[in-house]
């Protein structure tokens, strides 16, 4: 057989095939843990339109009572759209960006603290990670919003702390704790052989961490990090329960100004839903792409 075609080598210049048992590459058929962004990204793009379908169908289902029609409700929505976008949704985005920035910075410090060799630092980091990771977000928000002052005086200068800034702090706490776990997990996921090899080359612990381990972790952390960003963005309407001015709070006030017709509910809330979908869907798709690209190959 080999004498007929001497220059073909299976797996190199022709398809490899064997009937011997081999270890197939590991390909999980579904994500191991439930990932919001994976779930979101797995939706086909037309899902957004399906979600907006109630907008189109609602007129037929709603009560035909009274003179306030769906057309009125939609023209009301169109009147309010610029305001809801610029003073509402923009703040959701700003809150999520700042919360992510603060949460990530603190989370990295806390995560590295969790793998510290100093027992005290390790314990304290572990404690804060677990505390904020296992607390309801709304409760954290309540505590921060009610406990923080509305202005602070530093060297005689009065610095106001607006409500949305407090919301940023409140939301960054659980993000911090979850990023901390991501960092810890990523560092521990690097094979111990890497540590041993580096040690044998006389790198110090700090050098190993910064030059060898963390660069490898970075790629692994990106997908879960973006996953948490998507979760955080979708959690920002929680702030409406505390009166922070964001899209849901302002939608309510807009409906109030339009005399609280129940017909307004579906158009206004669907508008908010559509905005969140348009914003989070691309993030979820990119996360999935990066996850595939950086997945550990065996």
């Amino acid at each position, binding site marked *: 057989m080999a004498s007929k075609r001497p220059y073909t080598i299976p797996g190199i210049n022709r398809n490899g095939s064997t009937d011997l048992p081999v270890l197939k590459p590991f390909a999980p058929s579904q994500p191991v843990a439930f990932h919001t962004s994976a779930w979101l990204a797995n939706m086909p793009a037309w899902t957004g339109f399906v979600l907006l379908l109630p907008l189109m169908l609602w007129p037929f289902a709603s009560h035909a009572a*009274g003179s306030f029609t769906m057309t009125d409700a939609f023209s009301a929505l169109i009147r309010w759209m610029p305001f809801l976008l610029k003073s509402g949704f923009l703040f959701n985005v700003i809150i999520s960006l700042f919360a992510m920035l603060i949460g990530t910075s603190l989370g990295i410090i806390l995560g590295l603290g969790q793998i510290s060799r100093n027992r005290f630092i390790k314990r304290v980091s572990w404690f804060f990670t677990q505390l904020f990771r296992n607390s309801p977000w709304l409760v954290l928000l309540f505590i921060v919003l009610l406990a923080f002052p509305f202005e602070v005086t530093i060297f005689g200068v009065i610095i106001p702390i607006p409500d949305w800034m407090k919301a940023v702090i409140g939301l960054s706490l659980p993000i911090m704790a979850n990023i901390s776990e991501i960092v810890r997990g990523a560092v521990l996921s690097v094979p111990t052989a890497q540590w041993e090899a580096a040690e044998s080359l006389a790198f110090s612990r700090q050098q190993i961490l910064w030059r060898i381990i963390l660069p490898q972790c970075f790629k692994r952390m990106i997908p879960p990090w973006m996953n948490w960003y998507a979760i955080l963005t979708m959690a920002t309407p929680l702030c409406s329960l505390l009166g922070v001015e964001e899209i849901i709070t302002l939608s309510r*006030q*807009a409906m109030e100004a339009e005399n609280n017709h129940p017909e307004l509910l579906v158009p206004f809330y669907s508008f908010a839903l559509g905005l969140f979908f348009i914003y989070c869907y691309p993030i979820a798709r990119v996360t999935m792409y990066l996850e595939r690209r950086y997945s550990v190959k065996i």
Partner: protein
Amino acid sequence: MIKKILAGAVAASFAMSPMVATAESCSNDTWNKIMSRGKIVVGVKADYKPWGYRDTSGDIVGMEIDMANDVAAKMGVDIELVAVQSSNRMQFLEQGKIDLMIATMSDRADRREIVGIVGPNYYTSGTNVMSPKALGLTSWEDLRGKPVCGKQGAFYNQIVEQRYGAQVIAFTGNAEAKQALRDKKCIAWVYDDSSIGSDLSSGNWDDFEMPLNSEDDNPWALAVPSAERDCVFGRFMSGMQYQWHQDGSLVALEAKWGIKPTQYLADKKAQYGDWLAE
């Protein structure tokens, strides 16, 4: 020596009870703060048409905003409006986040202990329910044991619950509460009678009625921080309200914002009216 200790104890007890302390000494912190920075921060509603609500550009407008503007004009300072909710308005005032609160608050004994409410009240409203005509409610007692929709933060939710044994389901907004009424999740929607009246006259609620006698004429109160109640700011706001009644500003504002004229404002205008004016 004993005198000194006694004096110290007395001083301490004065410091402990804010009522006495304010009566003794007025530091007028809030008033001075407003004057020195040239701006008054007023807490108003942004979800209570037509007293305080947003226009499509996002500015807060309404009857109470007009009143707040008048206060700022008389003090000669700029104005900043802060949207407050029923759940946080008193905290904001006591924290100092707002200097003055004109936010559709009902004047209640328990609230007077927290914030500096000064009279005379600038408005009153009654509580009533909107319910389907088909139910034919005739008295408040008909609500006993039945689900009734309301808005969170309204004090009469509690009264309807305690006095008439209704089961109140409180929503964050009135639109939600009214939708629930339409969906038959509750037999009635409890709210201000003037609001219900304007809804019924809008022609969108033809199958509904306001069947009961309005309950609890609730006076509405504005408030200053409790430390300012018996000091310059409290007295000034009392005077503002008195003047609004006397010169008919409130009656005019009521008409301007399309609120059904209330007997209370007409009575007050007559009561405080100038006898030389005739």
